[in-house]
C-alpha cells in the first residue's frame, strides 16, 4: 500500500475504533507478524524478516468489526482475524499484509443460561479465564485444548479445535449452538441453530479460519462440572491392544473424558507412572533433552541430526505402552465407565497401574508445551502433526508416518480423541541440522512426508490444529472438487476476497 493509502486506512480505522486502538508501531507489527507456527520460529532463527501487517486494530464490539470490514472492503485491504495467536499452522500470518484485526477486546460473556445449557461468549475471551469463570458457577465447557492458557473462543471455532476431553464433550463443532459472524461482505449474521434443520451454517464457519468472515461470538453448550472422576493407567501389551480398548469403549457407547495411548517412545517420555521426570536407560539423554532438562544441547542435536539412528533405537524399545483413562461425570457414571474400561483392558491383557498415571496426566496436562522452548533453546526444533482416521487404518497409518517422516526427524506419537469410528494420532517430531537453512529443509521434508503419507492412506490430514499455511498444499488433493463449493461460499460471503487471503485452500484459481 502507498503511504497515502496507509494513512487513509489508519484514519478510517481510528474513526471507527478510536485512535488508541489502532497501531502501526514497529513493536506491534512485529508481534502480530507471526503466530506459533514452528516454521515461523525457524524463520526467525534464520534471521529472516517477517512479513509485517500494515496495521493492527482492536475493535470493541461487533458493530465496530462490521464497520472495519466495510472499510476494508472499500479499500481492498486484506483482513486477518486474530485471537491470541496460539495457532501452530500459520493461520494468522499476514501473507498479503493488510490489517490484523485483534478480537480480544470482544471478551464479554453475553449470556449464561445454565438452565438451557448454553453460554454466549464473545470471540476474544481467553479460554482458561472462561473455564475458571464457569467453574466458579459449577459449570464447564469441557473444552480443554493444550492451548487453553493462550487461546480464545473465536480461535477455537475458527480453527476447528479439539480439547483433551473430546471423547466425552466432543470437538468444538459439537459444542457450537450458533455463531455471530461478520461476513466478508460486512454483514452481521447469526447462524441458525443447527437443530433447526436445513443448511448447516455452523459447519461452514467452524474451521473456516477467518476466510469467510470474522466470528464475533459463539453460543456454546455448557455442562455441570463433573462431581466425580476416576483415574486409571494401564500397561497394554502393545499399540494394537491399546487401540482395541479405545475402540471397544467408544463403540460400546461409553463416554470417557480421556483415552490416551502413548507409543513406546512417548511412554518412555511420560514414564510408566505418568510423571514426566527423567529416568535412566539407554535413551536417557534423548529423554532429558526432549524434556528440556539438562544443560547444553550437543548430545540432543547429534541424536536429532541422525533420525534414522534415533528411530531405529526407538524400535528396540519394549512394546508395552501406557494407556491413560479418565472417567468423569456423576459418581455413578464415572464409576460405571471406569469399570467398563477396566473390563475391556483386562481382555487384552493390560496391567492395571492404578490411579497414578491418570492423576499425573491431569496435573501435567499442559506441561508439554513448555518443553518446546528448551528444545529450540538447544538449537533443535520440535513440532506436532495430528491426523485422524478410522480404526481399521490407525495402526498402519501410524507406522507409515513414522517410517516416512522418520527419515528426517525423530517421531513419537500418542493416540487420543477417540470416537466410535476412529481416533486421532498426535505425532510429535523433533529434529536438528547444522544450520538454520538446513533446519528448515529438514522441517519441511518431515511435514511433506507426513502429509503425503496421511493423504495416501486416505486419512484426514489434520484433526484439530487447522490448515493455515502448513497444510494448504494438500487441501486440494484432500477434498477434490469440493473446493469449488468452498469457492462458491467464499464468493458469496466474501465477494472481494479480503478475508484472510491465502489460507485454507489458498487463493481461488
Amino acid at each position, binding site marked *: 500500500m502507498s503511504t497515502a493509502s496507509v494513512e487513509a486506512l489508519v484514519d478510517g480505522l481510528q474513526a471507527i475504533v478510536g485512535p488508541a486502538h489502532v497501531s502501526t508501531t514497529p513493536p506491534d507489527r512485529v508481534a502480530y507478524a507471526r503466530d506459533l507456527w514452528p516454521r515461523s520460529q525457524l524463520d526467525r532463527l534464520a534471521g529472516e524478516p517477517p512479513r509485517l501487517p500494515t496495521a493492527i486494530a482492536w475493535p470493541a464490539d461487533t458493530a465496530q468489526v462490521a464497520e472495519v470490514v466495510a472499510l476494508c472492503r472499500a479499500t481492498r485491504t486484506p483482513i486477518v482475524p486474530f485471537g491470541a495467536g496460539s495457532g501452530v499452522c500459520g493461520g494468522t500470518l499476514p501473507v498479503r499484509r493488510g490489517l490484523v484485526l485483534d478480537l480480544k477486546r470482544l471478551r464479554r460473556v453475553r449470556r449464561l443460561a445454565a438452565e438451557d*445449557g448454553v453460554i454466549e461468549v464473545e470471540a476474544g475471551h481467553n479460554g482458561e479465564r472462561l473455564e475458571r469463570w464457569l467453574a466458579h458457577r459449577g459449570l464447564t465447557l469441557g473444552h480443554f485444548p493444550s492451548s487453553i492458557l493462550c487461546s480464545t473462543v473465536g480461535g477455537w471455532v475458527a480453527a476447528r479445535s479439539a480439547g483433551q476431553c473430546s471423547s466425552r464433550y466432543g470437538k468444538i463443532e459439537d459444542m457450537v449452538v450458533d455463531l455471530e459472524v461478520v461476513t466478508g461482505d460486512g454483514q452481521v449474521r447469526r447462524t441458525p441453530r443447527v437443530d433447526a434443520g436445513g443448511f448447516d451454517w455452523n459447519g*461452514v464457519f467452524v474451521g473456516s479460519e477467518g476466510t469467510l468472515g470474522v466470528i464475533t461470538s459463539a453460543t456454546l453448550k455448557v455442562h455441570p462440572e463433573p462431581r466425580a472422576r476416576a483415574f486409571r493407567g494401564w500397561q497394554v501389551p502393545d499399540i494394537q491392544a491399546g487401540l482395541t480398548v479405545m475402540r471397544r469403549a467408544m463403540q460400546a457407547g461409553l463416554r470417557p473424558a480421556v483415552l490416551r495411548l502413548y507409543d513406546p517412545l512417548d511412554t518412555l517420555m511420560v514414564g510408566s507412572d505418568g510423571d514426566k521426570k527423567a529416568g535412566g536407560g539407554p535413551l536417557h539423554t534423548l529423554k532429558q533433552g526432549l524434556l528440556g532438562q539438562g544443560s547444553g544441547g550437543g548430545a540432543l542435536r547429534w541424536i536429532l541430526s541422525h533420525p534414522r539412528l534415533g528411530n531405529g533405537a526407538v524400535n528396540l524399545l519394549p512394546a508395552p505402552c501406557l494407556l491413560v483413562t479418565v472417567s468423569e461425570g456423576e459418581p455413578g457414571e464415572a464409576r460405571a465407565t471406569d469399570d467398563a474400561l477396566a473390563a475391556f483392558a483386562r481382555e487384552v491383557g493390560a496391567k492395571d497401574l492404578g490411579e497414578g498415571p491418570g492423576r499425573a496426566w491431569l496435573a501435567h496436562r499442559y506441561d508439554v508445551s513448555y518443553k518446546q522452548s528448551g528444545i529450540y533453546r538447544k538449537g533443535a526444533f520440535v513440532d506436532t502433526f495430528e491426523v485422524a482416521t478410522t480404526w481399521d487404518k490407525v495402526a498402519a497409518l501410524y507406522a507409515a508416518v513414522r517410517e516416512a517422516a522418520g527419515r528426517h526427524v525423530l517421531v513419537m506419537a500418542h493416540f487420543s480423541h477417540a470416537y466410535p469410528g476412529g481416533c486421532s494420532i498426535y505425532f510429535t517430531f523433533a529434529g536438528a541440522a547444522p544450520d538454520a537453512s538446513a533446519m528448515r529443509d529438514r522441517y519441511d521434508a518431515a511435514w511433506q512426508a507426513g502429509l503425503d503419507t496421511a493423504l495416501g492412506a486416505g486419512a*484426514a490430514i489434520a484433526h484439530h490444529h487447522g490448515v493455515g499455511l502448513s497444510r494448504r498444499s494438500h487441501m486440494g488433493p484432500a477434498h477434490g472438487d469440493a473446493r469449488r463449493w468452498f469457492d462458491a461460499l467464499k464468493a458469496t460471503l466474501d465477494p472481494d476476497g479480503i478475508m484472510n487471503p491465502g489460507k485454507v485452500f489458498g487463493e481461488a484459481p
Partner: protein
Amino acid sequence: MSWTSVDDPQLGVCQRADAGARLVEPLDAAGLAQLLGEYRGAFTPTVGPPPDPGGRDRVWVDLSPFSGVGPVTDGALAVQAGGAATWGAVEGHLAAEGLTLGPVPGALWDEPLYVTLARGARRRPSPRFGELLDNLLAVKAALPGGGLTRSAVTPRRATGPDLARGLLGAGHRAGIPVSVHLQAWPRSPVTAWRAVGFAGWAEALHGGVAALHGGARPAWWRFAAQGDRVVCLAGFAGEAGLARFDEAMGGHPLDPGLARALGDEVFGPGVAAHPLGAAWSGPVSEAIGRAEVGSEIWDLRPEGVTVLGAATGPDPGWASLADAALGVLEGGP
C-alpha cells in the same frame, strides 16, 4: 446445452437414456459428474422411473446405480452405501452382520439417503447413537457444473469448513451424493424399556435433562402429553446408563410395555410416517411454554429441544444466502 438422443456424445457416460433423453441413468459417479457438468439445466434425481415425468423441460437422473450397500469396514464399523440406498436397506444389511445404525425413524425407512441428506434431516431421538448426521463419516457427491467431492472417511471433519455439511440441507442443487459412509454400531442383545409419567412439561423436560447430565443415554426416547400428564417413553440398548436414568427421572413409573410398543411402532419398517420435518427447535426453557397437549418431543438435549408439530421455516436471510452460494456453484452469476 440439451440433448436430443442417446447417441449424443454427452450421453456416452450413460448406460441408459430414454428416447428423448429426459431420463438418463449414468454409468458411475464419474459419469454422473460429467452429466452434471455438461448439462446446464436442472436435474431431478430419482430412483427408477419418475412417478410423474412432467414436461419436456425436466431431465430426470436415475440414481439406481448408486443403490448398493456395503461393505462394512472392519474395526471402524463404517458402512458404505450408495446415495440411492434406503435407510431400511442399510439397516437390513447391517442387521445381518450384527450391527445397527441405531433407531431409524419409520418415516425414513424407505427414503433414499440422498433425499434425506438433501433435506438436511438430522433428527432422531437418540441420545445413545446421536443424530443421523452425527454418524455421517464421509460423503462423495457429484457437483452441479461437474466434478466430484472427495473426503477422507474419518471420525470427524478435520480441515477447513465442513464441506460435506455444505451439501446437506440444500436440496439437490448443491450436489448429488453418490456414496455415503455411515457409522454403524454393535447391535446390543440387551434391551430395556421405561415409561415414566410427569405432572407437566417442565417436570418432564427437567427430569430428562437431569438424566442426561447423570449419564443416561437412552437408545431412543419420546416425551408426549397424554391426558393431564406428560409421559416419557424410553428404550435402552445395552447398559447405557439405565440405572442412572432410573435415578434421575422422578415422576411415576408406568408400564414399560408402553415404551416397547412405541418402539415397535415408530422405528423400523412398515410404519406410518412421522412428521419429522415439521418442528420448532430452541432452548428447553422456551420449549416448556410451547409444548402443549398434542405436542411431542423427541430430541431433548440439555442445550436444546425439538418440539414436533410446531413448524418454523428456514430463516429467509440464510436461505437466500444459500441460494446465492448455490448459484455460484452452479456457474451462475
